[in-house]
């Protein structure tokens, strides 16, 4: 039985009410008003598709053994690296095994998430792998005052595929591939190039998804009415409804396209919507998932009894609930690097990244792996050879120790207006980890006036710096103060 063992989701904390975009940009393109319902999710300035993918992956793996992974597949059209396996950065952030594991990036189309899911299930069906984590994420920069800016949101989702104890069994899948170019992004280009909306709606989403689903049903000998939920992306609300009408789906059985709550999250979106559906599913439910992008993948899952015992992670529902309104369109534009603000000469310092150092310290830097003294039990971050406990001082007596899922408490903090920052003040402080160990970290996803000494923090994998000159993106972990929303 091949299927899903666990799911996870991540929608970034900040939401931009579409009316804020309208208020700022309708003078330029009045038609954006037509789709200004609800809000879109906006990744913080220090997030990207990889960091959101790590968040979804940790969410998905919160009850599972990361050491048992045979492969990590990462799907995105906004990968930070063109040549450096992004999935391996993600796997290192998870402190997943390296030996015997093959990580892979899936990209080139916003249906790459379901393509990766099918590849994962084929690997498991063939008996060559047991546990494959599939993560899909996208953070698509859009030009100001475009329909795309209105439609798109940021987010990620993750599915753990395996053989045993699945919460949803895969009963079949079908793929249709064709070179339908509703949008594309050429090499070296900053933004997508999009074709006329009417054509994308009518000849793209409106035909390709129904035709693929119909072909799957014919092949499987099933009716659309057999399904309890049909899940497919389409950011045009009318077309989303139109597809259901065309296929004869009861409107109550169509999964919402999430336009009002986060917008279309690109490669992640079929999985984001699917996780949202799983969060509401009962044993025996039949779910039909379709994606879109140079064709369409169709996947059929049947929810098992195991879902009753499944301890749901934060997921999509949880991260949607954890929201803060971003009330400034200028801030949104700055976070997405659409406008230029002076970082000052202090911000010019730009040492390169020693790849040798990064390799030696990859577990520490990407996985937040420290050490714990075998003699006295003291946890250390950064990992240390000599125990810091003055009453111990043991040398070379350390085990690996993971901090990523620990909570912590703030010992001291500041909000620094002098530090060069995209979003001043730069907030940072010292953290005492639950279970021992302390270190100093940047804080993120918070406001200075919400923070107090003693407040709990959780940890988040974030982009630490972007070396524009050399095209290098550095990642590390930050602390998120757990303020009341």
């Amino acid at each position, binding site marked *: 039985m091949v299927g899903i063992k666990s799911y996870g989701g991540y929608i970034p904390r900040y939401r931009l009410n579409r009316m804020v975009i309208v208020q700022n940009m309708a003078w330029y393109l009045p038609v954006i008003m037509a789709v200004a319902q609800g809000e879109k999710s906006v990744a913080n300035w220090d997030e990207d598709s990889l960091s959101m993918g790590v968040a979804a992956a940790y969410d998905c793996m919160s009850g599972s053994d990361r050491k048992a992974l045979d492969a990590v597949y990462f799907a995105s059209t906004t990968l930070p690296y063109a040549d450096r396996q992004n999935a391996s950065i993600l796997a290192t952030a998870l402190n997943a095994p390296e030996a015997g594991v093959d990580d892979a990036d899936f990209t080139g189309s916003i249906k790459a998430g379901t393509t990766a899911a099918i590849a994962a299930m084929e690997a498991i069906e063939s008996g060559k792998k047991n546990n494959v984590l599939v993560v899909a994420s996208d953070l698509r920069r859009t030009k100001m005052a475009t329909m795309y800016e209105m439609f798109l949101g940021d987010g990620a989702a993750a599915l753990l595929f395996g053989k045993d104890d699945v919460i949803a069994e895969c009963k079949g899948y079908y793929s249709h591939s064709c070179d339908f170019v509703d949008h594309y992004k050429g090499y070296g280009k900053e933004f997508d190039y999009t074709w006329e909306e009417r054509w994308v709606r009518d000849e793209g989403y409106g035909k390709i998804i129904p035709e693929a689903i119909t072909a799957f049903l014919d092949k499987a000998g099933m009716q659309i009415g057999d399904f309890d939920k049909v899940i497919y992306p389409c950011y045009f609300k009318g077309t989303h409804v139109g597809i259901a009408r065309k296929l004869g789906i009861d409107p109550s059985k169509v999964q919402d396209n999430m336009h009002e709550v986060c917008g279309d999250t690109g490669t992640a979106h079929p999985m984001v919507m699917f996780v949202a559906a799983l969060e509401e599913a009962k044993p025996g439910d039949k779910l039909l998932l379709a994606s879109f992008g140079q064709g369409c993948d169709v996947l059929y899952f049947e929810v098992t009894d195991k879902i009753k015992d499944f301890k749901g992670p934060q997921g999509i529902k949880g991260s949607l609930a954890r929201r803060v309104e971003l009330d400034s369109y200028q801030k949104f534009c700055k976070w997405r690097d659409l406008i230029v603000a002076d970082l000052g000469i202090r911000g010019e*310092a730009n*040492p390169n990244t020693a790849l040798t150092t990064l390799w030696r310290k990859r577990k520490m830097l990407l996985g937040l792996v420290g050490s714990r003294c075998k003699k006295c039990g003291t946890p250390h971050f950064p990992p240390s050879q000599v125990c810091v406990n003055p009453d111990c001082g043991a040398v070379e007596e350390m085990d690996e120790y993971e901090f990523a899922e620990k909570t912590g408490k703030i010992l*001291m903090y500041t909000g620094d207006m002098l530090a060069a920052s995209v979003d001043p003040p730069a907030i940072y*402080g010292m953290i005492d980890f639950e279970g021992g160990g302390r270190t100093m970290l940047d804080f993120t996803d918070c406001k200075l006036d919400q923070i107090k000494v003693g407040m709990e923090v959780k940890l988040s994998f974030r982009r630490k710096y972007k070396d524009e000159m050399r095209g290098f993106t550095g990642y590390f972990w930050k602390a998120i103060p757990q303020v009341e929303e």
Partner: protein
Amino acid sequence: MATGIRDKVAIIGMGCTKFGERWDVGAEELMVEAFQEAIQDAGIDKNEIQAAWLGTCFDEVNVGKSALPASMTLRLPNISVTRVENFCASGTEAFRGAVYAVASGAYDIAMAIGVEKLKDIGYGGLPEFSSAMGTLNGLWFPNVTAPGCFAMLASGYAAKYGIDMQELKRAMAHVSAKSHANGALNPKAHLRKAVTEEKILNAPMIAYPLGLFDCCGVSDGSACAIVTTPEIAKSLGKKDFVTVKALQLSLSNGTEMAYEWDGAHFVTAAKASSEAYKEAGIKNPREELSLMEVHDCFSITELVTMEDLHISERGKAPKDIMDGFYDLDGKLPCQVDGGLKCFGHPIGASGLRMLYEIYLQLHGRADKRQLKDPKLGLTHNLGGFPMMNVCSVAIIGKYDA
């Protein structure tokens, strides 16, 4: 059995430039200015100096590496010159090198010179540190600045002692106002205006809770000391000369940063000052010290340091400060020359600049700031951050004190 440095080395000459935004000069000119004053004060010939130490920190944007800039600029007679760098203790480290060299008997006369040209970087504050922290630290260390790191200490201190931040800020404002008042009396200080506590409290925020006036200035400057043995000092005809009573250094070992610490004091300063009092034979520093020049890079640093130097009791520094205990007319005046607050902090020079003020006071040469009959003075430097730092403490006094 080590006997310490007490009275083994005499200071026979000192010099100090005017500190400030010295747009017209570089590190070289500053060194000449400080050196000329020191050598004239000592009354010796340059060729009598047998070894020298140069303290400077941000060499990349300043004099460059090695001790050659000092040797070549001052045309020293091909003697040994060593560059030392230990964050904000760099100036005191240069002094320590020269003092130990004489105390060891290796040399008769040695010199320490510290210099920093900070105002060639094009922006406010200290030079950006991210290019100077090694290949690993930059990959994970937070995006910190000096005010940010010391600002954290205020949050830790307020939390530990349950003090309202506004109340703590009031004591911090008094720290700065007192130093500004002193600096106004000092022609060599960079900032020479008295500032009211109200103005300090209402200043723009630099790093919460530190406002503009909670931060010391950023200046160019140099200071110099010439040292020898008491015997040679006497043979040179020096009377009532000043000797070194204690020189201590303490460095963090990572305990504060990674294990245990209250976030409200300096582990190193508490240790270095205890050792220094022992070395100098001081039993009760609150009573015995005549004045102090401490590392007031930020008002909160000075406030907390009053406790680590064992002058104010734990949690009681704000009270002593508000009582005027550390004011110019207080029981134990602190930052009599105006401190880093008014001199700014040309890193390599600061430790020697502090010693210069004590030296002037002990010789009765401090003009409008002159204290009545001072005998012992303490200097203190704190380099790095509250959670990992280098701390130096020096005590100098009259030879017979």
